[in-house]
């Protein structure tokens, strides 16, 4: 295979998700009246910012070659903690939720780096534990947040005409992108995922960086939990089921390889929006009234979409391997 088509293939692999996102937006804009109206755009961003935060942490974890299954129940635990602290003001609620997330992240980090247990099984266990703690804290029911303290602004409010949760997610993604691309921490993250033993032998602080990555994933899930509580007015101990797999799907759709060593923060955001827009378009399609697809189709379509993307990726990487 000649170099031009090889480059083309690599380009599709890298920017494929952006092209697909643009195509989907174009489709929606042409087909539905208010698709790009301020109300729809802002509510899509507001709702998906929680998933975006969780997926950002997942992206870093996956680049190191690990996985974090605990993000969903961590968000649930944080939403309960934030709701319980919300009567004391915005800041205590925010910090309480964040602290709960960081605590779960610290457990993951300690078990994975000190006890040397696989990330998959570690975070499976902490997922159960966080969920148990959330139920205990909330006494098996949802905890309503205080509306007087202004805590709900974190989820429902706007700043400069743009939803506050979307600002938070945007800031997190900018920071994440800077950290991954411009700092030695980011390069170490990529090196660990490429070859952990080699990274260690080069003297990179592999354990420290891995620990920080899981801590960050916990913290971001904590923020997502705070937004969850603020947006829906309640701490929800049983929410977050399946978030981890949604986040993994978004990261993979974004082109980050699960084998680690390669990844992009921006593509992950595109992956989140892509999966989120599928739901949005389904709603619009039902609104047109020609066909009526139940909400259950959402997961079928998402699954099919994931299949399509990974199949294309697999084909591309096989071609690239053959050419190389």
């Amino acid at each position, binding site marked *: 295979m000649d170099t031009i088509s090889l480059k083309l293939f690599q380009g599709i692999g890298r920017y494929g998700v952006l092209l697909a996102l643009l195509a989907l937006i174009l489709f929606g804009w042409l087909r539905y009246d208010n698709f790009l109206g301020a109300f729809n755009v802002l509510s899509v961003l507001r709702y998906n910012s929680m998933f975006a935060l969780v997926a950002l942490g997942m992206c870093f974890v996956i680049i190191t070659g690990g996985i974090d299954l605990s993000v969903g129940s961590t968000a649930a635990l944080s939403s309960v903690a934030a709701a319980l602290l919300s009567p004391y003001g915005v800041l205590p609620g925010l910090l309480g939720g964040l602290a709960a997330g960081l605590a779960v992240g610290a457990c993951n980090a300690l078990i994975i780096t000190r006890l040397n247990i696989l990330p998959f099984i570690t975070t499976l266990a902490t997922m*159960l534990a966080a969920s148990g703690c959330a139920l205990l804290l909330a006494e098996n029911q949802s905890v309503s947040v205080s509306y007087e303290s202004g805590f709900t602004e974190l989820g429902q409010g706007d700043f400069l005409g743009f939803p506050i949760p979307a600002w938070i997610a945007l800031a997190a993604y900018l920071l994440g992108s800077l950290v991954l691309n411009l700092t030695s921490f980011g390069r170490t993250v990529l090196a660990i995922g490429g070859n952990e033993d080699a990274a260690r032998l080069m003297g990179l602080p592999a354990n420290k960086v891995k620990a920080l990555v899981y801590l960050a994933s916990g913290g971001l899930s904590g923020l997502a939990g705070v937004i969850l509580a603020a947006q829906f007015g309640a701490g929800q101990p049983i929410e977050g089921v399946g978030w981890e797999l949604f986040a993994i799907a978004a990261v993979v759709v974004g082109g980050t390889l699960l084998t680690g060593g390669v990844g992009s923060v921006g593509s992950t955001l595109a992956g989140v929006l892509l999966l989120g827009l599928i739901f949005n378009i389904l709603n619009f399609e039902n609104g047109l009234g020609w066909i009526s697809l139940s909400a259950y189709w959402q997961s079928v379509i998402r699954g099919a979409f994931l299949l399509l993307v990974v199949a294309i990726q697999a084909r591309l990487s096989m071609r690239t391997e053959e050419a190389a």
Partner: protein
Amino acid sequence: MSETATTLSTEHRASRVDTRILLTRHGAWIALVLLILVNLAITPNFATWQTLNVNLTQVCTIVIVGVGMTLVIATGGIDLSVGALMAIAGALAPLIFLGKLFPLPHPAIGIALAFVIPVLATGALGWFNGWLVTHLRIQPIISTLVLFIAGRGIAQVFTNGNLQVFNLPSFQFIGLGRVFGIPFQAILMITIVGIAAWMLRRTVFGRQILAIGGNERAARLAGVPVASVKQRVYLISGLLSGVAGLIVIARNSAADANLVGLGMELDAIAAVAVGGTLLTGGRATVVGTLVGALIIQLVRYTLLANGVPDAAALVAKAAIIVLAVWLQRQSHR
């Protein structure tokens, strides 16, 4: 290199290693016996037929799915789709025997088909998982994530998300029937565990599974038909998930596509891990998975029977998983 280091140090500390090996090799069995002894001492009415039946029926579906999961993990893979496949089998069976899918010539045929078609369908989906893993070379966790996401949706679309209620003793025998006072599902479970354990130890297929998990490239060079073995392993996992789905709906006299098999993938993986199967593949024990599932269930039962809330039992379950895997790691040093 680490292999030689292990053998050297074992020679030096032979006596200490004996107890260590005993603890780690048979740790799961020891834990199970301890749990039973503790329960005999503190839990009222523990040594009754009913307690046994309650605990057995609770673990049945986890173990049946866990057997397939053990084989998949033994090849170095993972199957996240099992719970969703259970939902599909559970949604299909009532549609068939209630005659909603196609007209039935005779009720008995409907019941026979309600056993066969759902299990074949989930088997086919398992085959599809294996195809993604072997032919498109997509990682198992992603390959099976596709059906994890889409599978439950498919089941919900079939039934429009509605609860299907039924009362059909001949079908429900698989979940409610008893043979000599023992629940039929427990007999089914033991049979499946027995066959799988025999297969893994005594047949060429079993050795090939372990060889692939131990070192896939070496296995391929040694002439093991890697793709075909992996394909069959995912097929088995799919078939067993289908059986488990039928048991769940038979037990409940109702099929709810939203709930059947929810979280099953995690329960099964936990049982496999606690039972002593290496999660990176190459070493597996089917009987261990049975023991692992029993331990997790007994801990929960012990806590619940002694007034501890269910949520706290979740935290205990997490601790057991970490502890069990950590202990196993110690034996490999």
